[in-house]
């Protein structure tokens, strides 16, 4: 029966839907450029829409380029092309109906990335039910807003689970820095002799436009030192989810945990699956929720790791409440060395959630002069702020500020 559908009626709608499907994938984070959209249309044209599996395989082969993208594609496909009577549905399908369908079985949890991609903040629904769409969005988003401002420490298990899902989607937009490698560019600063000469040889004359190159830009390495002592317990568990997300989002992220000892967990966090990764981390670390010896651990980092990890202009995130069992002994020296070996030292401190926070404890006083930036890290909102901090142009050293006290970094 599908074959009997007049082509002129079916095709534009189908093309439009494929286009929209690729947009959904793009919004969910798959790299789907215009070339791929065209390729997808061609693939579907070649394979036809008579068989669902063929249709799916055709889209899949064009739109996926890494194994990790499979799961997201599968879910998106199931959701978007739900109706088994595929072509028939396409004939009728109008974009807003995707949303109403989604509502019908809201009990099946969706990956948040995908949910957000399917329900864009601003719907351009051309027909029907704009209000319902808005209601749907509000229903699923409002608890999120509450959670954003909530302290990790006061969350219920269910809330924690939801925050985990949100954290998994957080990205750190580290500033890209010019490196000493050149790439071809339309408006670069260095002449690309090779390309220019090839053009000249082809043209048989030296009057050709020059080809240019410019310095490539790359994100600097990120080194995270995270405190897992007793006082940080509740936070560090949430932060591990965050660290897992950023480790898998970009290359050159190194993570070390410290309490009474220093443990490098970078390799464990590289596991794609967050539960597998964290199980391995907890097996590797022996000093969960114990005391803190910040000075000793930083000393070990400086001696054993700093030259290996901080060589290429790394940014260091130090996550700690600064409460030190050694009362800040030897801490200042190690902090100074750490600050001098990295491009930027950022201290994330959950204690900053208290508006009356003061730098009383010896450990905090010893560390403060050497950090470039001091930021809170007790809830989701603060993690987002962190992302914003990176996006901002470089703060110069000596400008660390926190509510309640001024910077003491020596000039």
């Amino acid at each position, binding site marked *: 029966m599908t074959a009997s559908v007049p082509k002129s009626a079916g095709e534009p709608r189908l093309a439009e839907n494929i286009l929209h499907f690729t947009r959904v994938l793009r919004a969910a984070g798959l790299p789907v450029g215009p070339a791929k959209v065209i390729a997808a249309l061609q693939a579907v044209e070649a394979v036809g829409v008579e068989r669902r599996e063929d249709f799916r395989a055709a889209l899949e082969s064009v739109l996926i380029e890494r194994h990790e993208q499979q799961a997201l594609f599968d879910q998106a496909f199931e959701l978007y092309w739900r109706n088994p009577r595929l072509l028939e549905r396409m004939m009728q399908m109008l974009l807003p109906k995707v949303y109403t369908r989604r509502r019908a079985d809201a009990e099946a949890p969706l990956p948040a990335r995908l949910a957000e991609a399917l329900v864009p903040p601003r719907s351009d629904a051309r027909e029907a039910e704009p209000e319902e769409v808005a209601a749907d969005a509000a229903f699923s988003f409002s608890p999120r807003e509450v959670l954003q401002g909530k302290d990790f420490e006061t969350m219920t298990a269910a809330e924690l689970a939801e925050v985990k899902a949100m954290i998994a989607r957080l990205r750190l937009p580290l500033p890209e820095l010019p*490196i000493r490698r050149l790439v071809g560019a339309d408006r670069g600063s260095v002449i690309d002799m090779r390309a220019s*000469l090839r053009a000249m*040889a082809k043209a*048989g004359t*030296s009057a050709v436009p020059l080809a240019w190159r410019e310095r490539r830009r790359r994100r600097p390495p990120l080194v995270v030192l995270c405190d897992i002592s007793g006082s940080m317990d509740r936070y560090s568990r949430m932060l591990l989810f965050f660290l897992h997300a950023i480790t898998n989002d970009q290359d050159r992220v190194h993570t070390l945990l410290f309490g009474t000892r220093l443990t490098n967990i970078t390799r464990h966090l590289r596991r794609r699956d967050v539960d597998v990764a964290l199980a391995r981390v907890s097996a590797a670390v022996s000093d969960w929720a114990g005391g803190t010896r910040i000075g000793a651990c930083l000393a070990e980092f400086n001696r054993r790791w700093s*030259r290996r990890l901080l060589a*290429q202009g790394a940014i260091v995130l130090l996550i700690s409440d600064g409460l030190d069992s050694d009362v800040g002994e030897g801490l200042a020296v190690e902090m100074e060395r750490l600050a001098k070996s990295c491009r930027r030292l950022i201290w994330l401190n959950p204690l900053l959630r208290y508006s009356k926070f003061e730098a009383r404890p010896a450990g905090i006083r010893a560390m403060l002069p050497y950090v470039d930036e001091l930021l809170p890290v007790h809830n989701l909102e603060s993690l987002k702020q962190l992302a914003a901090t990176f996006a901002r142009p470089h703060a110069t050293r000596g400008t660390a500020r926190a509510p309640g006290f001024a910077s003491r970094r020596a000039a």
Partner: protein
Amino acid sequence: MPSATLPSSVDDVVELLEKHDYFADRRLATSVFLALKMGRPLFLEGEAGVGKTEIAKVLANALGRELVRLQCYEGLDTASAVYEWNYPRQMIEIRLAEAQGGVDREALATDIFTERFLIRRPIMQALVPHRGLAPVLLIDELDRTDEPFEAYLLEVLAEYQVTIPELGAIVASSPPIVVITSNRTREIHDAIKRRCLYHWVDYPTAARELAIVRRKVPGADLRLSREVVAFTQRLRAMDLFKAPGIAETLDWAEALVALDKIALDPETVANTLGALLKYQDDIGAVSVEVATQLVGEARLEAAAELGS
């Protein structure tokens, strides 16, 4: 004397290196032997100043081969590591063709991308035998480059060939002896390491270090040499940010010779410590008391050895 024959046993390697003033321990000699025997690159990692680069130089010298050195740095690209086209010559060629008129563009395009216009950089040089023998290719401080260059090296190390888009693959007639060093300022990718024989170069034992000092700083008194070695070995046992390497020991011994010293004393140590330790914190950690104590111990040890 250039010799095409490679050492036939580990003992041969030890002997050969020693003849050229390199005192290798047995493990290093075994790695070198295997690298030569199996035709695999040798990957040397270790702290700065323990003689990683030296081994390539000595190997080249001992085997009578040309040493081709590629010093790595951030942003190293194929134009400075492998080959580059000679742009001025190419430009002149195009101009000449223009002046003669009746340019055949296709022919010109193939003409100016021939070997005549190729500038060979270290890696390509290493693919060509010098005086009938494949050279030693030293890729120094690989950790200073970035991952893209490592990825490029994979082809070179796996096939001993370089692919130039305009010319095709250029294959080494006989593969070079490759030595790669790294100071471990970052981890080198497993794919590179997998193709190599890996060796961690450690600080030398006291006996080996003494032999090195005696050979390299012949002007130093025997007693002074012993004291210098005993002192440096003790420094390495301390909790320092950067322990002195052999290069520093030799520098220090030479400094002391230049000062006409024949024995260590705390004051001289304090004045010349900058030859051994390169971090202010480390120098600060060796206070007058510490220096006095270490000098005392070193003198005792040297005296005991001399007496026995």
